[in-house]
């Protein structure tokens, strides 16, 4: 008996090993193509630095290892970049948070009545077309050159996708489900919480992901153009570039890129976690493939149960 159990455990261990091996293989398959592109880009970078540029002009594009050495290994610069990143992240997340609260509330309002939607929609569009760089100095005069105006830049830039995606989602709920709720006396609030908001979640996450990227850009660009205050990544970029410190400049650009990618992926991950199980655009398809087999099996067992009228015999009236 114990040998049987042991054998079972062994085979379980083998299965686990096989699974983790296949997971590694999958990871390699997934990571290999972008990694290859990365290597090609680094190669081109070196080629431009050493083959295209004259030694006297090499400061225009220092080689990658110098960027790493002066940008990331140098303690002072590294600390500067780290502090800048934290400040910009603070601004971006604050901006995104405020944009989400305002955007979500606006979209909910707009979904409640056609006339509200018609009244607000044009202004949402106008907001999106605001030439943000042009009004940065103005914002500085109005709100000072501190955190407040930086956050406002982020909000302006990140608001539109949240409003539009949330609104689309709220209005996308199935008409017949609306009918069903009507038949059972659901009011606005029930309709909103039980039907419209859940139905809007996939779109809300799409909006959030887009706006998160924009908020990062907003934080950096705003900082860059305010040109004063405690330096975030944008101000560092401006300083490095005016002092022709190209190694540090490129390092700062890389940090900014990395930050943007991290934020974008984080919201992608969050979206998949929350709605990925049932929404196709967030990855539900692959799950369906897996579970379809089970479902078919279920139907088969059903048939083998012989008799379609059978369930009644087993159950009782509700």
């Amino acid at each position, binding site marked *: 008996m114990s040998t049987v159990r042991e054998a079972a455990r062994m085979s379980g261990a083998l299965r686990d090993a096989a699974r983790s091996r296949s997971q590694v293989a999958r990871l390699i398959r997934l990571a290999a193509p972008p990694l290859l592109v990365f290597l090609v880009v680094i190669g081109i970078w070196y080629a431009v630095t050493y083959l295209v540029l004259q030694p006297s002009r090499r400061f225009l594009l220092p080689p990658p290892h110098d960027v790493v050495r002066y940008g990331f290994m140098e303690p002072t610069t590294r600390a500067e970049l780290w502090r800048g990143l934290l400040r910009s992240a603070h601004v971006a997340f604050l901006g995104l948070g405020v944009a989400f609260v305002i955007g979500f509330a606006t979209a909910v309002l707009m979904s409640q009545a056609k006339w509200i939607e018609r009244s607000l929609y044009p202004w949402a569009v106008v907001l999106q077309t605001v030439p943000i760089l042009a009004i940065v100095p103005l914002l500085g005069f109005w709100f000072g050159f501190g955190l407040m105006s930086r956050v406002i830049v982020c909000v302006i830039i990140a608001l539109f996708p949240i409003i539009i995606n949330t609104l689309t989602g709220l209005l996308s709920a199935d008409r017949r489900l609306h009918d069903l709720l009507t038949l059972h006396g659901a009011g606005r609030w029930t309709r909103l919480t*039980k039907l419209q908001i*859940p139905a809007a*979640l996939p779109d809300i996450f799409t909006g959030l992901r887009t706006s998160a990227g924009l908020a990062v850009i907003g934080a950096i660009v705003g900082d860059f153009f305010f040109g004063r205050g405690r330096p975030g990544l944008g101000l560092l970029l401006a300083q490095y570039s005016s002092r022709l410190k190209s190694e540090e400049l490129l390092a700062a650009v890389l940090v900014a890129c990395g930050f943007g990618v991290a934020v974008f992926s984080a919201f992608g991950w969050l979206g998949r976690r929350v709605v990925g199980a049932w929404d196709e655009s967030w990855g539900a398809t692959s799950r369906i493939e897996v579970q*379809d087999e089970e*479902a078919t099996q*279920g139907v088969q067992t059903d048939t083998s*149960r012989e008799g379609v*009228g059978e369930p009644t015999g087993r159950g009782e009236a*509700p």
Partner: protein
Amino acid sequence: MVDDDAVISFRDVTKGFGAIRALTSVSLEIRAGEFVAIIGPSGCGKSTLLRLASRLEHPSSGSIVRRTERIGYVFQEPTLMPWRTVRRNVELLAELEGVDRRLRRERADAVLRLVGLDEFADVLPAALSGGMKMRASLARSLLLDPELFLFDEPFGALDQITRHRLNAELMALFTQRPFAALFVTHSVEEAVYLSSRVLVMSARPGRLVDAFEVPFPYPRPNALRYEPAFATLAGRVASSLAEVA
């Protein structure tokens, strides 16, 4: 004359949407335990008839008297909420009616057993096949134990085999605890198999032009479909339908 026993009766009901006349002078009564099928060409106003019966729409003229508030409405598609598990979908209507959590969970499990989905109570609808989704939808409408069932071509999108099986399951449910049903369909065979009365509706504006009593006793075995008497009746319904289409 309005029948006192009728669960729902339409008297001379006309319904228009703007310039379009969807239904014209429809009179119809359904008594408890009566299964009425309505068949007609597409766009003849069959769905409008159901919306009127459910009070999602109101007649332009004529009157509708309904003697129960407990109605079940089954749509063409399963229309489940993809973010809710099968059980939570089935619980939905009870939740809207404010039924206590424990009670609605009990009832949901009972109806899920009834439609043979008890093993799938905790999965999301995406994991179900088309037929199973439709059963979950049926279970949802069964939960509040309706006295009047409105079916809007519920099995129209399913393959023949699944459709026959669901017909039989519905037959079993109906036999066990008869309700009044108004069943809209495109399929003559389905109409004759399920109903005690088949009404034929004309093209727009929809009008009830023919009625056939279906004499076969319940419960009806699936094999009934292949009997000569069934074929004869189905043939008569089909030719009546061909005249108005």
